[in-house]
C-alpha cells in the first residue's frame, strides 16, 4: 500500500509539469485565450454554443466557463464570484462587461452569417462595413460584449 501511494505520488509529480505547460481547463493546448466578463455565465455559454459554434471544454459553473472554437479558448468570468477575474480592484472598481475590445471570428460569407444570426435574434451594434483587409460587423453577446465577425478580402 505504501509503495502504491509512493508510486502514485511520483506519477502525480511526473504529470504535473506537463499539465502545467499545457494550461488549464481540460483542453490539450489552447493556442490563444481571451477572457470576457459576463453578467450571467450560463446565458453566455448558451449564446456562444448555440450561435457561434463554441464547445465547452469543461462543465460550466455559475462562476466560470471555458469554451473553444478553432484555436481560441474563450474564458467567461462573472462580475462577482470566487475567481480571480471576478475580484474588485483595490480601489473598489468591479470588472464589468462591455467595451470595444473583441475576439475576431473569421467567416467565409459574412452576409449569410449575419442573416442567420439576425434571424436567431442576435443583436448587432452596426451594419457591415468595409475596411482595408475585408468586411466586418460587431455583434453583442447577452452581456453587451462585442464579437467581431470578419470576412477577409
Amino acid at each position, binding site marked *: 500500500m505504501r509503495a502504491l501511494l509512493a508510486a502514485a505520488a511520483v506519477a502525480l509529480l511526473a504529470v504535473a509539469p506537463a499539465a502545467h*505547460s499545457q494550461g488549464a481547463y481540460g483542453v490539450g493546448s489552447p*493556442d490563444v485565450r*481571451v477572457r470576457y466578463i459576463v453578467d450571467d455565465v450560463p446565458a453566455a455559454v448558451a449564446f456562444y454554443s448555440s450561435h457561434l459554434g463554441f464547445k465547452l471544454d469543461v462543465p460550466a459553473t455559475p462562476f466560470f466557463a471555458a469554451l473553444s472554437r478553432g484555436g481560441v479558448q474563450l474564458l467567461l468570468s462573472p462580475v462577482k464570484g470566487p475567481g*480571480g477575474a471576478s475580484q474588485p480592484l483595490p480601489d473598489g472598481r468591479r470588472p464589468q462587461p462591455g467595451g470595444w475590445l473583441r475576439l475576431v471570428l473569421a467567416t467565409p460569407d459574412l452576409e449569410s452569417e449575419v442573416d442567420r444570426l439576425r434571424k436567431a435574434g442576435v443583436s448587432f451594434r452596426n*451594419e457591415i*462595413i468595409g475596411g482595408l483587409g475585408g468586411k466586418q460587423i460587431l455583434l453583442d453577446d447577452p452581456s453587451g460584449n462585442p464579437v467581431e465577425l470578419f470576412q477577409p478580402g
Partner: protein
Amino acid sequence: MSETVNVRYMVSDVQQAVDWYVGHFGFEPQLNAAPAFASVEKGPLRLLLSGRGSSAGRPMPDGRQPEPGGWTRFQVIVDDIAAEVARLKGEGVKFRNEVLKGPGGSQILAEDPSGNLVEIFQPAPFPVG
C-alpha cells in the same frame, strides 16, 4: 500548424501600442499603417491595433465611438508570475491590480498605454476551474 486567432484592441496611439507590445511582451511587428492601424503577432495570436482613423474606429450608427479600455483581455501564460511581474515593473509597465489567486491559478492585469488590459496568468498545478 496553429490557427491564427485575431483579437482587436482599440488604441489611442497605434505606434505607441506597437512599441509596447513588441518591447514588453515579445510580439513581432507585422503590418504597420500607423496612425490608423497596425498588427503584431505572438505565436498564433495576431493582435489588431486599431486607432480612431481605422475602419474599426468609425462611430456606430447610433453615434457611439469605439474606444480603448474595459475588462476584456487576452492572456499571457507564464510559469513564474512573480518573476514576470518584477520584470515588467522594472520596465515601467503599469498594473491595474495586484496578483490575485483564483481556483484556476494566479493572475494580474497589466495596462497598455491606452488603458487596455493584458492578463498575466500562471495556471494552478491542478486546476479545478
